[in-house]
């Protein structure tokens, strides 16, 4: 289909230039494709537009003209509702004029002397198409809430600016911490006020350096700035404004900055990098700005590699499930009680990858579900294998991540694994980390109730590590409490940790919930815990996590 000749009519293009020679050259280039109209200055152009029966698809505009110049024309045109969505391509040989016209709302530039005709024609076609496509899907180039550009226009404009502007730039990404909470707590209208305020303040504070800005993904702001060496004065002003200011809601704005961004790299990737820096400090409440660096870049490339390799690693079984025994110490002779399944990644090229590296990464993007599924299956297979081989049942705990809790088919998945291995639900124990409770106690309560009703045992992992509330263990139905290993590490030298362990053990005893102490390394720790009434111990004192074959020696010892 000939894009420019849909349903038999030619689109109309208005060329505004005071020089006859320029008008004629452009008219000759565009005349075969479009219905071309001419005006010698801004005023005449407005008259032509008002007088026309059909709308124009594009205006090609010279800037320096008598009577009414290009800048005034754009400003006037923006004020007329039926004209303001018509794209304008500015024709100029002035570098500085480009930024000014983009700010006013121009869509592209044609430099003088003109490029070859094919280039000019292609540019015109592309701009018209961009605007028409967006008109079809109901988008305008500006975001109604903040007045900033929409993402697509923003990137498109930067690409145009960069075709002829070569000065160094910085790309900045800003994100509002927990913005969804602002919406939830104060309502959407306040949320919108906050977004508008952020846009206004960024514009005000970055003022002279800002070239163009957009809002994306609800609460992220992208800003394209002339390069400056030091953003710290701006950042501290932004911090003052939002963290101590009198706005509709107190918010924390994080910034990720890619200084002197490499112009050879696609603009969207440059902003991805600024965003990566910005995301890196999501959890760090003391830091409000992060700079994109080579280290960070290498790290993000490494992470991308891990993400890319996960499926292959699962099918090649590069993930190894290790088992760490848990011993019941209530008797004089410790008795093998159960085991915890832990994952290791033996990458064929990158070597052994620490779970500390890939688990937080996969938790953050949801891929952890694949890992969890894998471990559940492998652990269940082993329980069955050991039962068949030794006639001995070792209960194995597996991790259930936060995201699994919200999986509507979680129970079916687990049930299927239990059934296909001929196990009892109680043999595959489910560890849910404490922070999941803080996130959404309501649904967690519901899910754990259901799982327990069908026979699964629930262990609360890492208790005491984060947002614990003692109240929580009285309200959430659990079968085992796992004491965070930081208590064990500190209890010998820190009276407070010791006291806390004592209190937790007392409450657990009162509730009739057994406690597992993790990270026990020494006889002294074991004795202290035993003395305080702790029943189960896991840690290097007994064994580090070991491969399944090696774990068998604990079973053999137990049954002999």
């Amino acid at each position, binding site marked *: 289909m000939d894009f420019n000749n849909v349903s038999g009519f030619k689109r109309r293009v208005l060329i505004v230039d005071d020089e006859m020679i320029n008008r004629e050259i452009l008219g*000759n280039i565009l005349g075969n494709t479009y219905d071309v109209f001419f005006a010698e200055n801004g005023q005449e152009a407005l008259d032509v537009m008002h007088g026309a029966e059909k709308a124009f698809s594009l205006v090609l505009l010279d800037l320096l003209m008598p009577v009414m110049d290009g800048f005034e024309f754009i400003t006037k045109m923006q004020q007329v509702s039926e004209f303001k969505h018509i794209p304008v391509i500015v024709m100029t040989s002035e570098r500085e004029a480009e930024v000014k016209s983009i700010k006013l709302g121009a869509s592209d530039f044609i430099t003088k002397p003109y490029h070859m005709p094919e280039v000019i024609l292609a540019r015109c076609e592309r701009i018209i198409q961009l605007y028409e496509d967006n008109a079809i899907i109901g988008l305008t180039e500006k975001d109604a809430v903040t007045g900033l550009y929409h993402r697509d226009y923003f990137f498109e404009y930067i690409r145009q600016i960069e075709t002829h502007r070569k000065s160094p730039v910085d790309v900045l990404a800003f994100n509002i911490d927990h913005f969804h909470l602002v919406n939830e707590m104060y309502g959407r209208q306040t949320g919108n006020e906050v977004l508008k305020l952020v846009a206004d303040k960024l514009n005000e504070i970055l003022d002279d350096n800002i070239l163009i800005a957009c809002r994306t993904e609800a609460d992220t702001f992208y800003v394209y700035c002339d390069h400056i060496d030091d953003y710290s004065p701006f950042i501290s002003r932004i911090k003052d404004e939002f963290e101590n200011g009198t706005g509709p809601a107190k918010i924390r704005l994080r910034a990720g900055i890619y200084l002197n961004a490499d112009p050879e790299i696609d603009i969207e990737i440059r902003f991805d990098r600024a965003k990566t820096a910005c995301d890196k400090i999501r959890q760090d409440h003391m830091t409000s700005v992060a700079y994109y660096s080579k280290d960070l870049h290498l790290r993000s490339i490494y992470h991308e590699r891990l993400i890319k390799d996960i499926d292959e690693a699962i099918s090649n079984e590069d993930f190894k499930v290790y088992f760490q025994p848990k011993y019941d110490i209530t008797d004089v002779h410790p008795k093998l009680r159960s085991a915890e399944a832990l994952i290791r990644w033996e990458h064929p090229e990158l070597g052994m990858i620490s779970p500390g590296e890939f688990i937080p990464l996969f938790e953050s993007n949801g891929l952890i579900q694949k890992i969890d599924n894998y471990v559940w299956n492998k652990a269940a297979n082993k329980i069955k294998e050991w039962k068949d081989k030794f006639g001995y049942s070792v209960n194995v705990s597996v991790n259930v991540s936060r995201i699994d809790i919200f999986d509507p088919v979680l129970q079916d998945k687990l049930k299927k694994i239990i059934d296909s291995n001929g196990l009892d639900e109680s043999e595959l124990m489910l560890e849910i980390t404490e922070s999941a409770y803080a996130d959404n106690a309501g649904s967690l309560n519901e899910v754990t109730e259901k799982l327990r009703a069908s026979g699964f045992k629930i262990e609360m992992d890492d208790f005491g590590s984060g947002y614990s509330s003692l109240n929580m263990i009285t309200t959430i139905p659990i079968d085992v409490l796992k004491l965070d290993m930081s208590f064990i590490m500190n209890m010998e030298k820190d009276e407070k940790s010791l006291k806390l362990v004592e209190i937790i053990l007392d409450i657990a005893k009162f509730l009739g919930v057994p406690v597992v102490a993790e990270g026990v390394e020494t006889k002294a720790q074991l004795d202290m815990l035993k003395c305080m009434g702790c029943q189960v111990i896991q840690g290097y004192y007994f064994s580090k996590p070991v491969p399944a074959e090696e774990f068998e020696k604990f079973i053999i010892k137990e049954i002999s």
Partner: protein
Amino acid sequence: MLTIDKLKEYGANTEDGLGRCIGNEALYLRLVGTVADQKDFDNLNSKIGEGDLQGAFESAHALKGVLGNLSLTPLYEKICEITELLRAKTDTDYSVLLSEIQDLREGLRKLAE
């Protein structure tokens, strides 16, 4: 009569100039034929004479656009030079540059005879 060969001899990059006219030789020659009569040349002279460097800059700037599009290289280069001086409001003796521009303008006019 103006011809492509004469323009080549003059130093114009006729390949580029014709390219911008999509190879339409008649159009190109017609447009080049109007250049020597551009009022902006006279304005440039008079504004500099009056000391109105901003006004002179605007005329030079307009000429620069036109000459560049037609690729009349020798004249274009001189006009670029004076445009930059005027942009910076340089306080200098413009007479040599102006007379060179005038000579090139007349040279162009002669080509058409």
